[in-house]
């Protein structure tokens, strides 16, 4: 029983990582109705680029993070303007296929360029342990959790408080009315996708400093992000956070008390159960969106 607090803390730490990884997905899904299967690959690109800027360019972590965010933001914007815009009005299926194609392309091209070796992003703080009574957490994990919290809060404020965020929400509610009110919806869609891309890539770089960036991680990240999004409800900010934390804790407890080999199954079990019993997620007011 004495290891329970440790498991819970581990779960919360991993859960906050899950929440951040899922945030970009839930944004794009909630505001654009695009099921982004390339989400994990965007995360992966963030990690790989983070490795490149900290190792090859020798930048420090935070400057590197800003640079990665900038580049990936431009990339996301281009992806939307060049690819997704063409299928905007055709329902969900073309979007799903297009992003699956994109994810295959990105994953395998990255594999060609960088190979399969894990790439360690230089972290900003040491990985020494910190003790809170019986609980051990490494410094870098604490730092990462803090950054997660800041990023999630920043994204929330951006959507809720700024002019751009208001335009995004208006576009989601009614594209036609938004257009009539003078909002350039094509631009807003591109910005939303860019924002989702930025968050995904920042998550990738941040977690690349704790684990390591791997080219083949994309599929797994996408799956976990889907679990979180479905658990929390599509497009719901609070849902992504709570869903992420719940998944983290559930996995940590399951891994600690039952069997480590089966940890990944719990996410899928959660997805299946959620979709059967509460298809709109735990935060199931259908109207609530980011």
């Amino acid at each position, binding site marked *: 029983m004495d290891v329970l607090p440790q498991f819970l803390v581990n779960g919360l730490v991993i859960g906050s990582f899950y929440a951040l990884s899922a945030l970009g997905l839930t944004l794009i899904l909630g505001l654009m109705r695009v099921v982004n299967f390339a989400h994990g690959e965007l995360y992966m690109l963030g990690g790989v680029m983070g490795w490149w800027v900290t190792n090859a360019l020798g930048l420090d972590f935070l400057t590197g993070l800003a640079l990665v965010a900038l580049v990936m933001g431009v990339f996301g914007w281009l992806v939307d303007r060049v690819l997704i815009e063409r299928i905007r009005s055709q329902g969900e299926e073309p979007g799903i296929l*297009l992003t699956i194609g994109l994810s*295959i392309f990105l994953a395998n091209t990255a594999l060609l360029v960088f190979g399969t070796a894990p790439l360690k992003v230089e972290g900003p703080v040491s990985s020494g342990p910190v003790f809170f009574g019986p609980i051990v957490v490494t410094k870098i994990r604490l730092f990462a959790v803090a950054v997660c919290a800041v990023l999630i809060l920043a994204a929330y404020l951006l959507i809720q408080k700024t002019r751009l965020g208001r335009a995004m929400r208006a576009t989601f509610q009614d594209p036609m009315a938004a257009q009539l009110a003078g909002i350039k919806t094509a631009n807003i869609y591109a910005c939303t996708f860019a924002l989702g891309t930025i968050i995904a890539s920042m998550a990738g770089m941040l977690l690349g400093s704790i684990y390591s960036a791997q080219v083949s991680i994309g599929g797994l990240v996408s*799956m976990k992000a889907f679990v979180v999004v479905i658990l929390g409800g*599509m497009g719901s900010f609070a849902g992504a956070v709570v869903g992420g934390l719940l998944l983290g804790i559930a996995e940590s407890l399951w891994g600690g008390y039952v069997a480590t080999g089966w940890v990944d*199954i719990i996410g899928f079990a959660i997805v*299946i159960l959620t979709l*059967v019993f509460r298809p709109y997620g735990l935060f199931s007011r259908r109207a609530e969106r980011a």
Partner: protein
Amino acid sequence: MRFERNALLATLLITALLPLVIRDQYLLHVAIMVLFYAVLATSLNLIVGYVGEFSLGHTAFLGTGAYAAALLSTKLGWPMWATIPAAGLLAAFMGLLIGSITLRLQGPFFVIVTLSFAEVLRLVADNWVAFTNGPMGIAGVPQPSWLAQAGNLATRQFYFYLAWGVLAISLYLAYRFVYSSAGRAAVAVRENRYVAQSVGIRPFRYAMLAFVLGALLAGMAGGFYAHYISFVGPEVFRFAFMVSMIIMVLIGGKGTLVGPLLGALLVTFLEEYLREAKELRLSLFGLAVMGIVLFLPRGLMGFLATRREVRPTAAPPVAVAIAPRRQGV
């Protein structure tokens, strides 16, 4: 309808004659894989093209069939003619189980939950070592004993006709389904769920029928795969199979019976041809998927159909344009 029937019959007839011409073992192997993928693409097409929901979990049925055949023949010693149908039936049962949950959902929910089921099965195959032998897989799935003396070419020919038989059964079942009242009901649901409901069609029932039939065919393909490759591991659930199947259905044209066959032929040859390019191959595949979505949304068959629809209206001006020139000459 008649065009599809004739095209399917002609395809089957021509492929049946192929082994008389092809003596090369490698080519025969490629041909066998084309037939195998044709079964898979046909079965996926029943769900994607006729239910109109996008399943990413079709490998669940392929894998169930493959494991069922492998386990039945290695552990219980069942002969091949029994294991392949049994594999299909087990996969159909799995389809019933999974379908009863997933078909209540639509759109992105359906996509993700089907994918989840395939992943769950992959994890089970990977971790339940006592039953599935884990990541090592099940090696040495027995082949009929008389094949041992028959030589390599005869073995390939045998498997070619086995795959041909599975494909023929699949196409027959798919054809009968698509052109039955149940198939038409499914298409009605696909085109407009609410209108279909308003004329008394229950969407769930017909979607389920197509789903279970698709699972049955995929399971038989899996059973065949287990015996032909004689090894089954958790990678039968891997996403790469799924990707190949999707591309085949899309490139050929979903919602047509001929399309997936065309897709299977094209993609299998492309895969073999690009084998030298190794990793680049998958990058190209990704580009191909994006290209199809953007430029060929209805696949090759859809493209041909559009051409055929356009031509009658376009034909008269062409005739007029040609006629004066003849006069001039």
